[in-house]
């Protein structure tokens, strides 16, 4: 049973790694997308927030792939996914012109129900995997 949990952790890690690699390749486009999402008004804060988000997501991907620290996976997973769910809910009905459409997982060009469903699924999966692992 433990093997299945670890396998799902690793698969989830690669999902985050794939999503993160696009952000690492085009950090400025990610900054522009985040600016459109109107999270904070000050650009200065966003300059620090965007790389922090990219680093957090990379850290989460690495933690998921190594599968050792499940407590940290839960902590960072809830922070990252909670943040993305918050920005999607905040921007429901919005279509963004400056968004390149390359960050489909967390910062899509048009916010749809399937985007939110995917992000809720990831959050729920991280929480359930932790709950399952701690009950074995």
């Amino acid at each position, binding site marked *: 049973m433990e093997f299945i949990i670890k396998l799902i952790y690793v698969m989830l890690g690669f999902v985050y790694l794939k999503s993160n690699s696009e952000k690492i390749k085009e950090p400025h486009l990610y900054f522009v997308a985040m600016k459109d999402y109107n999270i904070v008004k000050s650009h200065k804060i966003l300059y620090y927030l965007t790389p922090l988000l990219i680093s957090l997501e990379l850290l989460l991907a690495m933690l998921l792939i190594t599968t050792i620290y499940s407590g940290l996976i839960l902590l960072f997973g809830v922070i990252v996914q909670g943040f993305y769910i918050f920005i999607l*809910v905040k921007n*429901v*009905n919005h279509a963004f012109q400056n968004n390149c459409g390359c960050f489909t997982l967390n910062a899509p060009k048009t916010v749809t129900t399937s985007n*939110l469903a995917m992000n*809720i699924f990831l959050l729920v999966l991280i*929480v359930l995997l932790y709950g399952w692992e*701690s009950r074995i």
Partner: protein
Amino acid sequence: MAVMTLIFSTSVSIVFFISGFSKVLSLKEASLSLEQIDFIPKRLKRITGTVFPFIELTLAILLIIASSNFMINVITIILISVFILVNFQAINDRKPKSCFCFGKLIKTELGYGGLTQSLILLLFVIPNIVFNKSNITVLDVLFSHNLQLIEVFFIIFSMIISTSMLFLSRSFVDKLMPV
């Protein structure tokens, strides 16, 4: 921490109980109310509408008597995720749809209020999965001989406050941000 998770899961249970019970009182309307939800197959809409209140009631009881059970928490979290998506879809469509979430007891609509309530429900269930690993239920805590009357009173008071918050948040947000 275990007591906190029990307070939260009991609040979720109370919401499910009120929702299920109010739908059972007007079962016909409850089954018809699902007609507006697009992602349920047409054939299954009637039967889902009829069975759904009983699922909510069963889940409400199970959340009280076996709140630490992993499968019960999984089903609860799936159900809440569906609520979130249904409300989100209604906001995305920009069409006000009546919800019948609490039957004829409380008149509700799908939208920001429902979305807020569902997100808080999700926040209330997550600690139950993460922290509640013992088999202690809220009934064990309330009828424990080790607790003083003031502690029992505090637990019941916290449950009432968190449940009221779940209902008030919905009506408050609905009034503040109509679809």
